[in-house]
C-alpha cells in the first residue's frame, strides 16, 4: 500500500466514523463534532489527492472548506445555546417535539 491509498483509507474511515456519529449520537455538541470529523476526513483525502496529482486547485479547495466549516459552527453554536437555555439539556432525544 502506498502512502496515498493509506491516507485515503484513513480519510474514508474518519468520514464514515463521523457519519455514524451524526446518525446515532444523541448529544447536540457531539453531533456537531461528528459533522466536523466528516469534514476533516474530506480535507485529508483532498490533500492526499492534491499531493499525488500535483495540482493546486485541491489545495485552494481545502482552505475554502476550512472557512465554510468555521462559518457552519458559528451558526450552530448560537442555535445550540438557545436550545440548552430553553431545555437545560443537550440530549436531542429529550427535545422530541418534532416527529421526523
Amino acid at each position, binding site marked *: 500500500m502506498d502512502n496515498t491509498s493509506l491516507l485515503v483509507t484513513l480519510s474514508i474511515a474518519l468520514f464514515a466514523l463521523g457519519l455514524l456519529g451524526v446518525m446515532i449520537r444523541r448529544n447536540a455538541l457531539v453531533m456537531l463534532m461528528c459533522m466536523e470529523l466528516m*469534514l476533516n476526513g474530506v480535507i485529508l483525502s*483532498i490533500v492526499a489527492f492534491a499531493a499525488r496529482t500535483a495540482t493546486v486547485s485541491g489545495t*485552494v*479547495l481545502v482552505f*475554502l472548506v476550512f472557512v465554510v466549516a468555521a462559518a457552519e459552527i458559528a*451558526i450552530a453554536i448560537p442555535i445550540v445555546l438557545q436550545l440548552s437555555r430553553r431545555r437545560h439539556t443537550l440530549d436531542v432525544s429529550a427535545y422530541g*417535539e*418534532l416527529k*421526523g
Partner: protein
Amino acid sequence: MNWPLILQSMLPEHLLLAGMLAILGLEIWSGRSRDGHALAVVAVAAAGIAALWLHATGFSAAPFAGHYSVDPYTTLPKAVLLGLALPVLLISRDDFAETPYYTLVLASLYGACLVVSSDSFLTLFLGLEILSLPVYALVVLGFLRPQSAEAALKYLVLGGAATATLLMGMSFLYGWNGSLELAVFGDAVLAGEPIALAGAALIIAALFLKAAVVPLHAWAPDAYEGASAPVTAYMATVVKAGVVFAALRVIGTTTLTPPVLGLVALLPLVSMAWGNLAAIRQTSFRRMIAYSSIAHAGYLFFAFLGAGAGRWEAIVFYVVAYGLMNLLAFAALPRGADDERQDRLDALKGLHRRRPAAAAMLAIAMLSLAGLPPLPGFVAKFLVFRNVVEAGHTFYAVAGLVASYLGLYFYLRVIQYLYMGEPEPSAARGQPRRLAFAASALCLAPAVLLTFFPGWLLDRL
C-alpha cells in the same frame, strides 16, 4: 483582470451584493434598527431584470475561465430564481421588519446565482454553501415556536453532512482525474471505474439530501414546520430550485448509465410515493407542503432519466410552474391569531365563506400542484414523463405516474376543507393584506399565462 466584463457578466450578483451592503450600511450609519423591506425588494427586482436583460441580449462570457461563466443557459435560471424570490419578500413584510432577515435572504440568493453559473466544483460548493448557510439562520430567526431551534439544528447537522458528502464525492473525482471541473462528472459516469462511480454517487446523494429526496428527507418536514411561513415558502421554492439547478449544472447532458441510473430512478420514485402518502396524514399546512415538496423533488430528479436535450426544458418549466403555485398558496394563506393556529389545516375550513378570492387561489394552487390539466403543473409533469418514456424507461414512467396520482387525495382534501367545511366561529376574519395581494397577483398572472400559452415559455427555452 477584465473589470468591465466581470461587472457586466456578474451584474445580478453585484446588484444583490449592493442591496445587501446598502441595507447593512444604512443601519450602521443611522445607528438604529431600520426596515430593510423596500431596499431588498428593489435589489431583487433589479437583479432579476438584469438577469433577464443579459438573457434577452444573449450575453455569454467566462470572466473566470473554468470556474464561472455566463450564457443564456445560466441567465434564465437566475432570472427564474430571483423572480420566485420576489413574492417571498412581499409576503415577509408582516413577519419580519428587521434588517437581518433581508440581508440573509439576499445573501442566500447570491449563492443561488453563483451555483447556477458555476463551472467547477469549487464554485459549486461555495455557491451551495452561501445558498444554505443563511437559511439555517432564517429558520431560527422568527423564533415563533419552541421547535424552531430544534428544527434549525436538525437542518444544520444534516445540511453539514450533505456538504461533507458532496466534498467527499468531489475529492474522489479530483483524485481520479486531477481536475475540479464539472465536466469530470460526465466522464466519471461513462468511465465506470469504481473510484469515479463512487464519487459520482456521493455527489448525487448529497444533492438528494439537500433537495430532500427519500430516504434523505428527515430534516424537511421539521424545518418547514419550525420556520415561519415566508421562510418555508423560500425553502420550498428558491432553495429547492437552486439545488435542482445545481444538479442540472453537474449532470448536464450526460446520459446516465446503469449503476448511477438506478440511483436517480429508484430514490426519486420512492420519494414521490412516500411524499404523497405521508402528506395524507398531516394536520399542519406547512408539514403537508413539506411532504408535497419531497414528492416534487422526486419528479424534478426524474427529469434526469430523460435524454440530455429535453432535461433543460422540462426542469425549467417544472421549477417555474411548481414555484409559482407553491408561492400562490403561501400568499393566499389567511393570517391566523397566532402561528400555531394559522398553520393548522382545520383553520382553512369554510374559507370560501369568509374570503372567496383567497379560497379560489388556494384551490388553483392545490389543483396545479396535483398536476391536473389544464393547469401549468400538468404540462410540467407531462414534459418530465414524456422525456422519461422517450428515453425508453417506460416502467419507471408508469410507476412514477401511479405514485404521482396518489397525491391527488391530499390536495383534494384541502379543497374539501376550503369549500365544504363549516367555518369555526372563532376563526379570525383577517382582512386581505395589500402586499400579500400583490404577491398573489405576481404569481397568478404568469400562472394564467402558462395555463393558456405554455408554448410561449417553451419556445423560449
